[in-house]
């Protein structure tokens, strides 16, 4: 019985992992199905508005692409995710997208909107600026009006105005997705044999490239299957992953080699996308205003100003809540906001007695042997210590 369920869980997970491994194929499938697709830059975009305009939001989070054309616009020390995005735009990888939504969460992202107009003139961009002082009451008003502007632009691209009713429906679709993603995060942690770290990442990453309705349906079935499989954590060491994103897979594939499983994550690319919901109608205000409330409520992210610096506290709470013994910080090469946060939370984790392993990652890094030495040493440090 368990073997059959496990096979079904692996089959369902593989459906999503395959999508995550080949976003271009996912894009082609959308286009072949007559759907319009809008590219969404990191780290947070109001994807519900894209959905309400009848289009598919499609995450643009770099890839294993060497910077060649994009070096005209982005220096060697810019983050590789942005270099890959611009490179993809310039080399036709994003051909077929109706438009892209650019953001301004960090210094590199801030210049992308202007770079894009010159580097990829054929693919229209819609700028979205999230206020950094999000706790100021004016932030809600600003975001609400920003979403209204986005809705107008996206309605024009989609050929369908974004109505209040459509936005409410989209919020419900995304609410269902986020609930299943949270459920999966817990279920995957309990089943590191069926869903090892790289598979967990692939399953969550697929959400960026699929219609949320389709993704949620498969994810719910996967969660149901995982719920029938006994706990697989015995003898393994739980870790919390933090950082912008945990790629390449070569890094994640090392974790089970040394007995680690992902007990929880604090990654911008993963749990940040689904840990907070859009409040329900009881919160008051229009759908756009409640959408704004979600953006205001997200904390503990290096790219969102946090006057109380809650990331360290959050990591400690995650370790305690999920039985994780240590934290692995996935430091994206040349990501300044992540470097700025590191001294603060590393000190807090040390004070709490939680071991921390910082590893420098880059999506297109050639080999993982240096990372292997770090991960293995960390496992030995916990084992022999």
């Amino acid at each position, binding site marked *: 019985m368990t073997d059959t369920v496990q096979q079904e869980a692996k089959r369902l997970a593989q459906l999503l992992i395959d999508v995550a491994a080949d976003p271009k194929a996912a894009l082609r499938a959308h286009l072949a199905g007559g759907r319009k697709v809008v590219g969404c830059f990191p780290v947070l975009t109001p994807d519900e508005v894209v959905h309400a305009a009848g289009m598919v939001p499609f995450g643009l989070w770099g890839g294993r692409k060497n910077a060649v054309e994009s070096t005209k616009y982005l220096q060697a020390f810019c983050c590789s995710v942005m270099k890959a995005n611009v490179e993809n735009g310039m080399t036709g990888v994003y051909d077929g997208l109706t438009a892209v939504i650019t953001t301004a969460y960090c210094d590199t992202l801030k210049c992308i909107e202007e770079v894009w107009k010159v580097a990829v003139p054929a693919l229209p961009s819609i700028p979205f600026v999230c206020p950094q002082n999000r706790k100021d009451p004016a932030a809600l008003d600003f975001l609400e009006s920003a979403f209204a502007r986005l809705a107008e632009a996206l309605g024009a691209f989609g050929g369908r105005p974004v109505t209040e009713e459509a936005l409410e429906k989209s919020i419900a679709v995304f609410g269902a997705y986020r609930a299943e993603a949270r459920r999966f995060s817990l279920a995957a942690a309990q089943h590191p044999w069926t869903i090892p770290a790289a598979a967990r990442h692939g399953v969550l990453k697929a959400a960026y490239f699929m219609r949320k309705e389709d993704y949620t349906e498969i994810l719910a079935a996967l969660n149901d299957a995982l719920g029938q499989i006994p706990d697989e954590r015995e003898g393994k060491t739980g870790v919390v992953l933090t950082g912008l994103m945990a790629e390449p897979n070569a890094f994640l594939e090392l974790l089970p080699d040394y007995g680690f499983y992902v007990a929880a994550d604090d990654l911008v690319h993963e749990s940040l996308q689904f840990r907070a919901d859009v409040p329900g109608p009881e919160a008051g205000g229009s759908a756009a205003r409640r959408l704004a409330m979600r953006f205001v409520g997200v904390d503990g992210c290096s790219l969102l100003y946090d006057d109380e610096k809650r990331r360290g506290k959050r990591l400690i709470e995650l370790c305690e809540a999920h039985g994780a013994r240590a934290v692995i910080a996935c430091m994206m090469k040349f990501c300044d906001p992540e470097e700025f946060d590191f001294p603060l939370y590393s000190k807090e984790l040390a004070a709490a007695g939680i071991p921390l392993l910082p590893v420098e990652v880059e999506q297109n890094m050639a080999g993982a042997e240096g990372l292997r030495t770090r991960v293995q040493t960390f496992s*030995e*440090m916990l084992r022999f210590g």
Partner: protein
Amino acid sequence: MKYLGVDIGSSASKAVIVDNEGVVVARWLKHTGVGVATDVIETVLAETGTEASEIACTVATGYGRKLVPGADEEIAELSCHAKGARALVPKTRTIIDIGGQDAKAISLDGYGRIQSFAMNDKCAAGTGRFLEVMAHVLGVGTDALPDLAAASGTDIRISNTCTVFAESEVISQLAGGGSKADIAKGIHASVAERIAGLAKRVDIVPVVCMTGGSANNSALAACIGKELGAEIVVPEWPQMAGALGAALYARAIL
């Protein structure tokens, strides 16, 4: 019984055999890296006059640790350097290991357990390879660098940390009439700055022990000590620390 530790590094391979008491009974060193890994155990046994039946357990470490057939276990080099350094210098709390392709700083607690560690990640500056490249430009072997630096009256500062750019800088200095001795001193100062920057990412608590082949470079050890404001202790056979740690792990595991 005896216990074998094999450390396959990027530029040299080392082996140490210890007895039941953990006393070193044989050492082996070859200035070849991962290329020797496949038959290293047979070679070590033959060249140290040891019968295979005498070895109860073998642990492999270093970058080529996964390439050693016949090893009972493989353990990362940082763990092995920690164990080896602690055996060589019992009160060691901080280890600086400069290997061929990377540099490491390891912080130990009072019991010799690793508390934290840092490794160079963005480039080869501050590694043994950096010194090799610079020695080549100066037309000397790396062994000659300390004496050359000692003959200097004043150092010529090498401002580039990138190995390739630093090589160009040294060539420019030579072309500009800079003395080899002064440049050699500047090279040591440059590596020491990089290593100190790395070491300060972990807690620097005395005793600070330096391991790896570059620890034989007395000028470098002195420069690093000056940068850190701490005395650097270099054990006898510093490049054997990893292999010794591996041998001691082999003894402990069995």
